Structures are given as C-alpha cells and as structure tokens.
C-alpha cells in the first residue's frame, strides 16, 4: 500500500492513527497475562548487576548513547524522542516515568533550537502552526496525565505498539513534495492557512495553501494525546497529516512539524516536570548529548545515502519497539 494524496488519504491516515488509539485501549488486557517467575528472577539478577555501577556510570554512558542517537535522528529526519524513549527505557535501568520526562525535554530542546531558523526562512508557518498547536498542546496535557495514571507495563506495551506502527508508516508512506491543492477549504481560508516560501534549491517563491483542514485539525487531537502519553515528539505523525492530508508542501510540513513540537512538548513537559518525573542527573546529559550529536549529524547528512539511512532507522525502530513491547509483556 502506498499513501497518495487524494480522498483516500484522509481515511488512511485517520485509520492508522485510530488503530494505534485502539491498540492503547485493548493492550492493557494483554499486559496482565504475562509475568512469570523466571522473568522475575532474571530481572532481579540484572538489577543487582546494575546496582554495582558507580553513580557517574549511567549519565556518562547515556551522554555517549544520546550523542550517537542525535546523529541518527538528524540523518533519519526524526525528532530525538521517538528513538530516545523506546531505546533508553529498553536498555537503561531508568524507570519509564523519568525516560518519558527526559524524552519530552530532549524533543523540546531540539525543536526550540531548530525553531528560529525555520521561522526566519518561512519553512515553519506560524499561521499553520497556531491552531494546530492549540489543539495538540491541550490534548498533550490529557495524554501526559493518562500516561502517568496507567500502569507502566501498559504504557510500555502501547509505546511498543506505537513504535512498530511508525515503522509501518515509514515503510509504506510516500510524502508528496508539492501536493496539488486546487481550492482551499472554508476553514483553511478563514484561518489564513496559506503562505509563500523560497525554495533555495531552485530559487523559486512557492505559494501554498491547505485543504481538508478540519479533518487535519481533528487528527491532532490523537497526535497530541499520544505525544503526551509516551513522551514522544510526534513529528512522525505531524508530517503526514500536514503534507498528505492538509496539502502543505513537504518542506513547510517538516519545518512546521519541528516547530510544532516546541509547543506540544512544552505542555506535556510541564506535566512531567510538576509530577517529579524529571531527574536532572539523567535528563541533562541526554539533552546535551543529543544536541551535540545533531550538530555532527547535520555535517554527515550531505554524505549519507538516503536509502541506507531509511532502512537503518526502520531497523532501529523495530528493535526499540519490539524491546518496549516485550518489556511491557514482562519478557
């Protein structure tokens, strides 16, 4: 299946996002069916080995790990959170509560650092972002509370399911560089969701406008909830909705998505912050490591082969999603 722009796109993107939401509802029943004595014994042995490490060991390893993650994130064109949360919760000794808190701060720092350049170049549009951000940030607060209220294994299972879904989306989706929008819909027109940007490659001024604005705005309710619940940036969901569904050019969709993360993640980050889920000893090396890695990643981007990067990221996400899923099942 390939996602193309057209009337089927709304239904496809909506169905995929609703599929994840449905997964979040039904997976809790699976989660309780899976803890056994052998698993608990193995976990106890692992915890004993972890306890023997000095305090500086994990922040040091985490900063190097996040540096590498920062490189991969830039090469893959994804925010840090989508790789950070499943990998760190799967392979580090931190409880998921703190990983999600740090994951949101990691995604937030990356978005805040990228935001000014995107806004100045008109690659992020305030007019497009503002209504979408209001919906997504309000729903991210709800998602954050849901994430903190649900049992950890349930959240791990839902996280694993979401990451595996993202793998599918990456494998199947095909973004459109410049979607054809013949007529702007009434909502998009009323909100002035249109603009221009200069394509630095061709030197052209490109005009854009949105269509299917209302279904697009409604999908940001689900995106906001998932962002808050899992501590992910949700750039993976923003881009297809803005580009394939609403008809924003790919560059504007990617730029506005990155900028949007700075708003959506702010609301959810405060919920985690106020609930004590941010531990500076592990959160700050994560932020700094990932940002330094991003700088290196930008330099490597020109030399990297897109096809290799695409399959590398899908591989990493499969590993991370699978690990989160198994951890949720207690395996």
């Amino acid at each position, binding site marked *: 299946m390939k996602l193309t722009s057209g009337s089927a796109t709304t239904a496809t993107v909506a169905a995929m996002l609703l599929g994840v939401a449905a997964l979040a509802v039904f997976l809790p029943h699976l989660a309780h069916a899976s803890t056994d004595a052998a698993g608990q014994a193995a976990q106890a042995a692992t*915890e004993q080995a972890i*306890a023997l490490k000095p*305090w*500086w060991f*994990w*922040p040091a390893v985490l900063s190097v790990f996040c540096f590498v993650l920062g490189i991969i994130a830039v090469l893959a064109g994804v925010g840090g959170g989508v790789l950070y949360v499943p990998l760190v919760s799967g392979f580090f*000794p*931190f*409880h998921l*509560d*703190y990983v999600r808190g740090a994951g949101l*701060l990691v995604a*937030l*720092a990356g978005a*805040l*650092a990228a*935001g*000014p*350049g995107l*806004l*100045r170049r*008109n690659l992020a549009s*305030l*007019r497009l972002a*503002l*209504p979408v*951000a*209001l919906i997504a*940030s309000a729903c991210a*607060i709800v998602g954050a509370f849901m994430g*903190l209220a*649900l049992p*950890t294994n349930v959240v791990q299972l839902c996280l694993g399911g979401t990451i595996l879904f993202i793998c599918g989306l990456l494998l199947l989706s095909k973004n459109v560089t410049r979607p054809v929008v013949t007529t702007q819909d009434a909502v998009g027109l*009323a909100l*002035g969701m249109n*603009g*221009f*940007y*200069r394509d630095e490659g061709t030197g052209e*001024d490109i005009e854009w406008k949105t269509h299917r604005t209302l279904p697009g705005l409604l999908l940001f309710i689900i995106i906001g909830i998932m962002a808050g619940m899992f501590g992910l940036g949700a750039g993976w969901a923003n881009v297809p909705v803005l580009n394939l569904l609403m008809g924003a050019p790919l560059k504007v969709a990617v730029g506005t998505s990155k900028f949007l993360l*700075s*708003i959506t993640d*702010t*609301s*959810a*980050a*405060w*919920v985690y*912050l*106020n*609930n*004590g889920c*941010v*531990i*500076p*000893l*592990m959160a*700050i090396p994560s932020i*700094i490591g990932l*940002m330094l890695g991003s700088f290196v990643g930008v330099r490597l981007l020109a030399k990297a082969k897109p096809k290799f990067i695409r399959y590398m990221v899908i591989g990493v996400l499969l590993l991370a999603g699978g690990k989160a899923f198994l951890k949720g099942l207690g395996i």
Partner: protein
Amino acid sequence: MSSKTSPEQIKYANMLFYGAWASLAIMLVTYLVYVFGILAPHVPLEELIKLWRTPVHNYLEVGQVPQGWGWVSLVGSGDFLNFVGIAILAGMTIICFVPLIPAYLKQKQPVFAAIAAAEVLVLLLAASGIVSGGGH
C-alpha cells in the same frame, strides 16, 4: 502577500533563539556544579541511582522531593539548581507567545489573537501545576 517573513514571526524567532541557547548554557553550568559537588544535592547520588529504577511516587516519597514548583525552595541544592535552566527551556514558548497577542490585535486579526491567548492559558495551566496527574 510576499515570501517575506512576517514581523511577528521574526520577533518570535529571535526571542526563541536567545532564550533556548541561554537555557542550554545555564543547564550545562548548573549540571557541572551538581556533578562536581560544588553544591551538595538534596537527594544523594548513591541514593538516586537506586531510586531512578522505581516509579515516580517512590522517588518523591523516599527522596522527599517536592512536586510542582516546590523545587524553588530547594534551588540552593546541586540537583534542584538544574531546574532553573530546565524551567527556562520549558517556559520559552509561553514567553514567545505573549507578544503575538497585541501584534495580531494591531493587525485586526482577533481570531489569531484569541488563539495565541488561549495557547498561553493552556501552557500556563500545564506549568502552574494546578492540575496534577496520578503517579503510579
């Protein structure tokens, strides 16, 4: 309409640029103060590496860690000093949104002024800690 970036968008970008990098610099400095023991932490490091494996309610209880803005009263300790940079980072979007309200009103765009005002309220609500989640 032209491809020129709007003044309010440029203003937002400039505020975000200085604020984000200032908060990252503050975080780096306060983290070094913390890990080099220049200021003693509220939760000892040896204790913390046991607590970060447990759910947040246990960390709050055993570490006697306050919720919401309670960290302000502990800002003199190495670990909670780090929240200054984190709070600035998490507060930048709220600060950047405020000037948008009069800018859009001046342009006679009340819908966008209302959206910006509503966004400030939503983010302030999240930041206030008035609404609190159930830790597990």
